């Protein structure tokens, strides 16, 4: 093989398109304001559950958008629904309903309904 002095690297991209985004679709159908989220993280910084657990709504929404389900399943039930995130959100996203709907979606996945 001719040496050109450089080589083509192996493909390192993550293909999120192959993920199933059913959780995100389900939430968006019930709470369209999830689209307004700009992942600023204000909600996570205001969060009560985040004091004692590793819980971040910002992560949850990003993961839901990507269709990464595993971490969502592990952490979504840590929310206490206190609603501080709604007060904090600069975009007026109805964050608590998003969490409620993600939980509902997780339950539905467990029952093979979606």
């Amino acid at each position: 093989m001719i040496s050109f002095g450089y080589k083509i690297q192996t493909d390192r991209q993550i293909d999120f398109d192959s993920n199933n985004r059913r959780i995100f679709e389900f939430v968006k159908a019930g709470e369209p304001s999830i689209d307004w989220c700009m992942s600023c993280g204000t909600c996570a910084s205001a969060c009560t559950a985040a004091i004692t657990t590793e819980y971040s709504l910002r992560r949850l929404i990003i993961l839901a958008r990507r269709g990464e389900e595993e971490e969502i399943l592990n952490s979504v039930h840590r929310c206490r629904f206190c609603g501080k995130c709604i007060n904090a959100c600069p975009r007026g996203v109805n964050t608590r309903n998003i969490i409620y709907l993600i939980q509902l979606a997780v339950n539905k996945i467990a029952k093979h309904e979606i």
Partner: protein
Amino acid sequence: MKFDPFVLPFTLGLIFLLGYLAVKYTAWFTSLDRNDKSKVMTGFFSLSLIRAVKEVFLESLLHRRIFLRNRLLGFMHMSLAFGWFLLILVGNVEGRVYRPGEINPPYIPIFFRFFYANPEAFPFHRVFSFAMDLLLLLVLSGVILALVKRIYSRAYGMKRTTKLMTGDRFALAALWFIFPLRLLAESFTSAYYGGGDFLTGSAGSLLGNVLPAGELYYPAWWAYSLSLGIFFAALPFSRYMHIPTEVVLIFSRHFGMAETNKRTSFTEIEINSCSRCGICLDACQLSFAGGIRNVQSAYQLKSIRYKSIQPNESLNCLMCGRCASVCPVGIDISSIRMITRNEMNGRPPDASFSLQPVSKTRKSDVIYFAGCMTHQLPSIKKAMQTIFSRAGINYWFMDEHGGICCGRPMMLAGHREQANIMIEKNRQLILESGASILVTSCPICYKVFAKDYNLNIRVMHHSQYLFELAEKKQIILNPLYESAVYHDPCELSRDLRVYNEPRALVGKMAGLIPSAYEKENTLCCGNSLANFFASNDVRLSITRDAYEKLNAGDAQVLVTSCPMCRKAFEKVSGVPVKDIAELVVKSIHKNEQQHVPLQKKKIHTESRPLVMQE
């Protein structure tokens, strides 16, 4: 025995109705738990039975509570219910008097004029004819009023009426036809055979002039019987199930039954007692300020009853309790909503949330629990800390660096079991500290601590506690403002009736302006934790509406005692919004020279060149 085939629709309908009710009520009774069953057994032989009968008379027949709201609406309900009841009662007495010693099948008093068209031979026949005509007129006036209400409900003090489902319309039509058909049947009979009094007699002679009464009276009796039969058959499946069930509800309530955390037969009785009268619709802020018109209690109970409830209906509620406070039947709708939310969320409890408390229990006299929302408004907790140290109280700030949530938001999301885990953990922490008073700054926490924790210590909202400190002269308050408006938070006022202490406390610092929407009639600020579904815009319009109704613009300051309410009103208010604790601190420090320490950090601001103006 007197008989004619036309009585069959009525008789069959009545037999079906009574059979259905017997089966349904027996099923409800047998599925009661042992405790409730014994309540029923002992209740039947106690004074509460008499009280229950009195309430049935006042509410189910006279509709006293509706009368107190609006006289015309009350008269409409009373004339239909009490009028019809008397029609049956007097009819039965008439049957007894005219046919002593004979067995009267139930259809005889109902169709009396068919079998005894001209009862001149009987004693008191004038009295009975007159009474029956008068009662029929009373019921007919109710029917006419009900018709008018469909067209112009504002005359009855109702801006909105319930949207009916098809089955209800069917039953309603049958009900409306019953009494005009009775009038027709009796009038035709009177035209043909004579008899009848001022109503049926005059109507008969009028109709007899233009119509062949002899041919029409028999079909009219058939139609009357048919409409009765249809109504009875449709009753158990329509909103008119409330007629018999409300009586059962009143009795079971007087026997000491109440809603619990689970669905019981009492819940079923309450759900079936809703007449969808629509009085709750106008009370709902989501309706009059938020423009959401399909989630109000009448619709919610309907959906629960027919098992078509959706999460977005159940979660779209402020749980302010305004509907329950105006409900003429007194249905505990908030509890039913909580039960429904719980049922929709059948997830088993898990401990995926860590319960490690950040601070350890400290022995103290008073525990201060700020609550999640207070942590978003640090000035409130700082104010409380200042007041505590000022009054020299040995207190423990339980959630100073964050703590376990009180559990109410979890309950509102339908996770009762998880809430119970948190409640148990918090309870241990509270009891270990050996304190005698628990003070909280958040009405939501206060409600849960007072109702769900079973603490044997005093639970107080900070408005009550500060009032007590001021009364004992442990803090000295100075007048601050000339005028203030106090907004009652829902949980504090409607649920737990704490509205005199905060008012007295604010009264020591400012002149209170009364408002039409205070105490039990208070409005939700729109920021309620109970509503998962309402969008930001809906919440904001509710807040604006509540602010306008409070007339806070006339005052110098808007005072409230809930961090959520403060946060909500801050967005729309033209005057400063203060928590009661902030006001107290300001009032304590009023006559003192405040020492402002030198600020270490300076905020750098860009210096802009001045623009010369011409």
